[in-house]
């Protein structure tokens, strides 16, 4: 399977650990793959609608929410605080790339709060607690400093296969060197409905055809290629199009895509970009 094929399992968190690490290393190199993951994440989010609703007490929950919000520290764009604490890979599911590991981020601000609230007038035992809290804060601060140094050496980090996604994709390092390598090969999937004789085409990694040009689908069989519909991809390289299949009675065993003048051609005029056979 290609990395594009693995993207769905990655977004579902279903890749095994070693596979997920390899995928994340590739993810760091490929903007096209990141877009694929972003898009699949939207699909995955919609799947939550497959879970049945349950009745709930909105007023009580909103009150609890406001209580939490009022006592919560705000991030206020302070990115560095979180870098060191977000290192744990988490079920292969990166929310957005800069917002990983819920819960893992809480200790630093909470520890500081605790130090502040304890104040001076406490018993000796509590002061020991304060000291421990402060040690914890210092430890976290060191982790942050280390993480920041690491973040500064992008190339070195990319060489580390075990570097976690949260670090690789830290906001400030995002695209500096990562887009330079080649795009993955384009892929096209056809969903052929023999009953309705309609085709749903889905393409990814396919750069938009230039002005005046389109992509065209061809049905391949014993004779000359049978022209199918035309389409173009979006700026992110993806396309979804629904089109007619070949006339009934025309057998076909495969399909191919070429680039053609706008409006399409009756016979291919350019080399095949992708081709495949029916029924895998």
């Amino acid at each position, binding site marked *: *399977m290609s990395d594009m094929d693995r993207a769905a399992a990655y977004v579902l968190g279903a890749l095994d650990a070693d596979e997920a690490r390899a995928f994340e290393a590739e993810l760091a190199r490929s903007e096209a793959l990141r877009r694929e993951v972003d898009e699949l994440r939207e699909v995955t989010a919609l799947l*939550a609608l497959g879970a049945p609703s*349950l009745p709930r007490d909105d007023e009580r929950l909103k009150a609890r*929410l406001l209580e939490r919000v009022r006592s919560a520290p705000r991030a206020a764009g302070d990115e560095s605080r979180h870098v060191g604490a977000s290192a744990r890979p988490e*079920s292969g599911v990166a929310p957005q790339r800069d*917002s990983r590991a*819920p819960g893992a981020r809480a200790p630093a601000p909470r520890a500081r709060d605790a130090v502040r609230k304890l104040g001076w007038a406490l018993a000796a035992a509590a002061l020991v607690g304060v000291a421990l809290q402060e040690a914890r804060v210092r430890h976290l601060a060191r982790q942050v400093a280390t993480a920041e140094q690491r973040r500064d050496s992008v190339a070195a980090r990319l060489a580390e296969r075990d570097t976690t996604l949260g670090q690789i994709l830290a906001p400030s390092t995002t695209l500096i060197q990562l887009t330079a390598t080649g795009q993955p090969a384009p892929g096209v999937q056809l969903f052929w409905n023999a009953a309705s004789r309609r085709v749903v085409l889905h393409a990814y990694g396919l750069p938009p055809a230039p002005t005046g040009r389109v992509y065209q689908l061809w049905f391949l069989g014993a004779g000359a290629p049978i022209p199918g519909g035309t389409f173009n991809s979006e700026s992110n390289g993806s396309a979804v199009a629904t089109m007619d299949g070949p006339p009934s009675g025309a057998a076909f065993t495969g399909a191919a895509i070429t680039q053609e003048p706008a409006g399409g051609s009756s016979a291919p005029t350019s080399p095949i970009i992708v081709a495949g056979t029916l029924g895998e």
Partner: protein
Amino acid sequence: MSSADGDLIARIRDGDETAMTDLYDRHADLLLALAYRVLGDRADAEDVVLEVLERAWRDASRFDERRGSVRAWLVTMVRSRALDTLRARGRQVRLAESAARGGVDAGADEPMTGDDPAARAEWGDDRRVVTAALRELPPAQREAIELAYYGGLSQSEIAARLGAPLGTVKTRIRDGMQKLRVALHPLYVERRA
């Protein structure tokens, strides 16, 4: 991203607490349903959702709408957190079974969306589309996807559970997700940019 969600994030960044109850109204139905489906426990599901919403409040400045919708952001965090809780409890196996059995139907046509009528109409429609798309998947593909999605199982674990070859499970997940992506494409494309 829907402009309603975009406005909410802007208000949250400004420290407007009332935006949080609006965010709740727009998303709590979906988030709670998901957390409950994973965890099977209402109190735990509520805790996960409140924790994630609080985190959205804290981290709103880092939300990047170019990478995806607010909904995807919240759902991904809830799912991740819920699966962590599930694993911590060691109840993965039993709940994964219930996820596989549970299917997609019960109550799916009756969204209990909060006080936002626009969200109710919009997502009631979405729910019907998603439910239909899941129903139309070949059962083997749906089963594999649901075991991963609600049960947090890896492809190898799914293969072991079903007694199916790993390659078969990988193909089911890939093909099933691609079908869902085509079927659901209009729902996420029109809401963004």
